[in-house]
């Protein structure tokens, strides 16, 4: 409306209140109050949609965590009782410890194997075919991957079970039935499925390592291993950071394959916090307690994520990355 007015103000009767206001309007002056309001109106549909799908559920989560939720009945205000309960909940504490162990194992192996694979694949003879093959696990649904490995681990007909047993690595019990090895069982599936993501990211980073720097370093007197640590690694570092961040957040959220394989068992040996959260909320329907766990999990994810970015990202590398984009 204002734009229309701007172009036609010459013909508008100056006595008219509306016209008088628009005559003051300068096209260069883009940040006037009416203009800003107009922008707000334009953005409103998007804001409302966003609020409905993210902000409302977020506050509903906080609401739930502060109440005793009675399904089909009235919710009762309990204050911070749900949170207080978590401190003495042994399964909750154990869930956290297990989550840390699970995430640490997954991440470290995925980074190690992923980068190693990327280095091997980079500029190899059949790179394109091999990369496609390596990426295949990632394309599988996590539940399907879980079921697939569930069968491979199976004590009576599982192929890997048979293999490990023949190698003398395994006793009679299957991997997932043993308290000691069950966590490793699900960790291996996560590594199997998500190492390709790290490989892909590292490979993209390796492609951008400036060749002349590598060559200069070789002429300076470095062998391939020193070359990797001195030139390639600092160059793929920012890319890896993104990979670590993504995988760490996924580890805190995705439990599809665990639910498909063990459901948290045997005993509590694979009941990492998100699995316990699922149990509390949707097995025992303690929605208030569940919401409290979910909120703490969310808070810790955000805080850890921010720390990761702070610690790993130093300004020099940021600039180096920006320079590469030129």
């Amino acid at each position: 409306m204002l734009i229309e007015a701007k172009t036609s103000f010459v013909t508008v009767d100056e006595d008219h209140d509306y016209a008088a206001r628009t005559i003051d309007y300068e096209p260069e002056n883009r940040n006037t109050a009416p203009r800003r309001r107009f922008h707000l109106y334009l953005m409103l549909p998007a804001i409302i949609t966003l609020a409905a799908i993210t902000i409302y559920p977020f506050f509903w989560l906080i609401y739930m965590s502060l109440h005793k939720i009675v399904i089909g009945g009235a919710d009762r205000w309990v204050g911070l009782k749900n949170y207080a309960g978590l401190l003495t909940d042994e399964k909750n504490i154990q869930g956290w410890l297990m989550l840390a162990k699970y995430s640490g194992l997954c991440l470290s192996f995925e980074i190690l194997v992923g980068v190693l694979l990327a280095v091997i694949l980079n500029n190899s003879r059949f790179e394109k075919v091999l990369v496609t093959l390596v990426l295949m696990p990632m394309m599988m649904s996590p539940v399907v991957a879980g079921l697939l490995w569930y069968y491979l681990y199976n004590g009576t007909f599982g192929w890997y079970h048979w293999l490990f047993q023949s190698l003398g690595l395994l006793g009679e019990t299957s991997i997932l039935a043993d308290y000691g090895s069950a966590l490793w069982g699900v960790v291996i599936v996560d590594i199997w499925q998500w190492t390709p993501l790290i490989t892909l990211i590292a490979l993209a980073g390796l492609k951008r390592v400036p060749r002349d720097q590598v060559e200069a370093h070789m002429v300076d007197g470095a062998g391939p291993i020193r070359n990797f640590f001195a030139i390639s690694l600092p160059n793929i570092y920012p890319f890896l950071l993104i990979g670590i961040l993504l995988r760490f957040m996924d580890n805190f959220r995705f439990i599809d394959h665990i639910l498909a394989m063990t459901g948290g068992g045997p005993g509590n040996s694979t009941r990492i916090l998100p699995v316990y959260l699922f149990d509390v909320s949707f097995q025992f329907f303690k929605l208030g307690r569940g919401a409290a766990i979910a909120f703490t999990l969310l808070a810790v994810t955000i805080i850890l994520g921010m720390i990761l970015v702070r610690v790993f990202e130093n300004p020099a590398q940021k600039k180096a990355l920006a320079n590469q984009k030129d």
Partner: protein
Amino acid sequence: MVALKIENVWKYYGDTVAVRDLNLECDDGEFVCMLGPSGCGKSSTMRMLAGLEHISSGDILLGDRRINDLAPKDRDIAMVFENYALYPHKTVAENIGNPLRLAKVAKHEIRKRVQEAADLLEIGHLLDRKPMELSGGQKQRVAIGRVIVRQPQIYLFDEPIAHLDAKLRARMRSELKHLQQHLGVTTVYVTHDQLEALSMADRIAVMHEGVLQQFGTPAEIYSNPVNAWVAGFVGEPAMNLIACSCAQEGNAVNLMHDGFKITLDDRLAKAALSSGERDLRLGVRPENVRLTADPDDGMIAGTVFSRQLLGSDMLVDVLSGGDHIRVRTDPKSPFEADEKCYVSFDFDHAHLFSAETGISIV
């Protein structure tokens, strides 16, 4: 500091030949430029010297050591790259000291030698900066610093000053030349800029399409090019190469052209006759062409096509018989475009090339 010997070296990329049967010898302490347009094989040769490229066949010897199968780190060479190839996450001091650090030289020794190299290059005050905080010229000095901090057997320079602006380039040419003489290390310098090669090298190896065309001192290359290609590539503004046919009329040997007919002097006439070639190309550098307004015996008539002021000289382009003749003349030259004029050649500095093979006849 040793002599470098390249013997029958070939380089293939698939079926493409990049370097064809190259033979080259650089003396101890010599500054050799490899000159040629892009794709002439000069960079491939340098990369083979550095060990960054496999040698398809032939031998490269440093002193009496065959280095074909040595990894770059075992060759004892130092190289400056075209894009400087500095390590962005390292400081200037770390960049310069990197080869020493890799060679496990003691820390205080590294610090001392880095400081010496930096002082020599006048970048001592920049040692704590990162490469992205430096200008192009400073980066280039750091790249050179990384090379001179060592005492390798040979220096390799791959178009190190190609990305600098013209003024800085001129200064770096003289500094590099001075540095090389001061350090006395055998140096191979790759460039596509003939001015760089002429001004810096002890000897120039001119390459074209993977073949070494001529290897000689800058003066030799400039005044006695072995073929029309070298003649046209070296020198700025380029040599006039005019296609003519040669005919004997009585005692005189004439060069016939659409726009003119000129009689050769004894030296050129003898060579033209003994070669037996009919189709020739006359090569005359612009500074060896005279431009006048008044016609005289044996002068060529033409019209001024364009004039360019080069500062100390004026380059006048004269159109005669469909060919352009470049003349280097006085900057106060009065000729204007489309004006009629006359040119004559200084035969003492003229060359004749076979039109068919391009080989120099005289």
